[in-house]
């Protein structure tokens, strides 16, 4: 089968690829022309660099409907933003709730704070479809609960957390809601005014279609975090303390200018195409793939099947076939790229019943075509048939 013209990259949940064409050009232009260190001295080149950062901040604020762009803090990825949010918010004695769908970028910082004796934590269990138990959450919230961490969209099976209900519960008990939007930003609409999320951590290199090394944290007005990283900001340089004003308060050090210049173009692409259109197209493709995969004997799809409750991220297992081996066969025999194993979310695999073997994750993206999915489904059917024949 000719694979030359196909897009067989099904690992967009790890990082989106390819990027929209203007993303590459913008990063290159920044590197060639706009260098100089933003925020430091005011040469003309530096001002060009500052303009790019300003524009990135404005674009992100518009994208998430944040009224005040200075509440958007640039980080280097979602992990960085999550660490900044947790370590900047939590104080000794705090109680923290998190769902079983959390990524290690939440589990490990929380684990560290807990082992240091600073906080207590409790996990909200999730169903086999990856949806959190809201009754459990309601009972678990207590007076000392400072924060609830929620993975908006599972990176394993695409399950969408009921943010609205969880936010209402958290706020009723005076807790702050931290949303991990690593998998949802650029995939589902997020409006921080319609749904007053306190802390929104996102990454630039997945659904926002930007380069790696970009991301951010939205911090709701009125919530002031302790600086997690301190250093130069180019402002108030005579003081030996971090400025209190946002975003400098949380943004020390040279930023990823070329990356952010590229990210602006990723956001532009999404705005031009329309997030709703991208979402409905992805869900149509996902339904197509599910329909092709469900009849394959021995193949199990994990997570919710109902399109309103998930994104296009899909996890599967094949009876009698190790998922690492399945991923390897897909790549070596068919040129198909997937992601196998535990996907940095061990508790989520426990909830889905796929621990410790893990799954094969397939995540189409904005540039995936139906023909690519037909080829993928054909490959999986062939592997299953082969397995049945050999036993």
């Amino acid at each position, binding site marked *: 089968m000719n694979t030359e013209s196909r897009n067989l990259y099904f690992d967009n949940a790890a990082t989106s690829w390819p990027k929209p064409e203007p993303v590459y050009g913008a990063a290159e232009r920044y590197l060639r022309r706009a260098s100089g260190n*933003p*925020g*430091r*001295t*005011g*040469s003309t080149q*530096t*001002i060009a660099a*500052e*303009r790019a*950062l*300003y524009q990135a*901040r404005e674009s992100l604020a518009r994208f998430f409907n944040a009224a005040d*762009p*200075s509440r958007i803090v640039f980080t280097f990825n979602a992990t960085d933003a999550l660490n900044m949010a947790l370590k900047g918010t939590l104080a000794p004695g705090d109680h923290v709730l998190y769902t079983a769908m959390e990524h290690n970028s939440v589990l490990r910082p929380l684990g560290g704070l807990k082992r240091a004796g600073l906080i207590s934590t409790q996990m909200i269990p999730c169903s086999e479809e990856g949806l959190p138990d809201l009754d459990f959450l309601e009972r678990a919230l207590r007076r000392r609960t400072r924060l609830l961490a929620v993975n908006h969209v599972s990176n394993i099976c695409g399950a969408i957390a009921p943010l609205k209900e969880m936010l209402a519960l958290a706020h009723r008990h005076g807790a702050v809601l931290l949303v991990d939007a690593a998998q949802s930003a650029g995939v589902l609409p997020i409006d921080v005014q319609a749904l007053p999320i306190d802390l929104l951590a996102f990454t630039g290199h997945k659904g926002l279609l930007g380069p790696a090394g970009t991301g951010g944290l939205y911090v709701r007005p009125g919530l002031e975090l302790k600086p997690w990283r301190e250093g130069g900001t*180019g*402002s*108030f*340089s005579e003081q030996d303390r971090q*400025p209190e*004003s946002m*975003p*400098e308060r949380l943004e020390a050090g040279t930023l990823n200018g070329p990356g952010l210049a590229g990210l602006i173009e990723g956001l532009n692409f999404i705005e031009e195409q329309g997030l709703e259109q991208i979402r409905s197209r992805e869900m149509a493709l996902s339904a197509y793939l599910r329909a092709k995969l469900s009849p394959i004997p021995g193949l199990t799809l994990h997570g919710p099947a109902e399109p309103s409750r998930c994104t296009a991220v899909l996890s599967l297992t094949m009876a009698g076939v190790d998922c690492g081996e399945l991923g390897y066969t897909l790549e070596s025999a068919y040129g198909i790229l997937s992601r196998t194993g535990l996907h940095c979310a061990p508790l989520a695999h426990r909830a889905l019943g796929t621990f410790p073997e893990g799954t094969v994750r397939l995540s189409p993206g904005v540039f995936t075509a139906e023909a690519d999915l037909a080829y993928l489904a054909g490959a999986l059917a062939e592997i299953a048939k082969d397995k049945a024949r050999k036993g």
Partner: protein
Amino acid sequence: MDGYCYLTFPTVYFAIRTEAVLRETSHSFKLVPVPRSISSSCGTALRCSCTDLTAIKETLTQANVSIENSYGPLP
């Protein structure tokens, strides 16, 4: 005219934002490195004609741009 007037800002964010705000007006202005004779918490300043200074300050304040200080005329 004898020299320019300058506005400084608490952060770079506001300095850059003046461009978007003032582009809508007929004032001429330029973002420049802060002259050595003045000190500012951010390295970028706005340079304009001193006759426009009051009007520019008013426009910026209305658009919620924080101004740190104003100077001038400087050679």
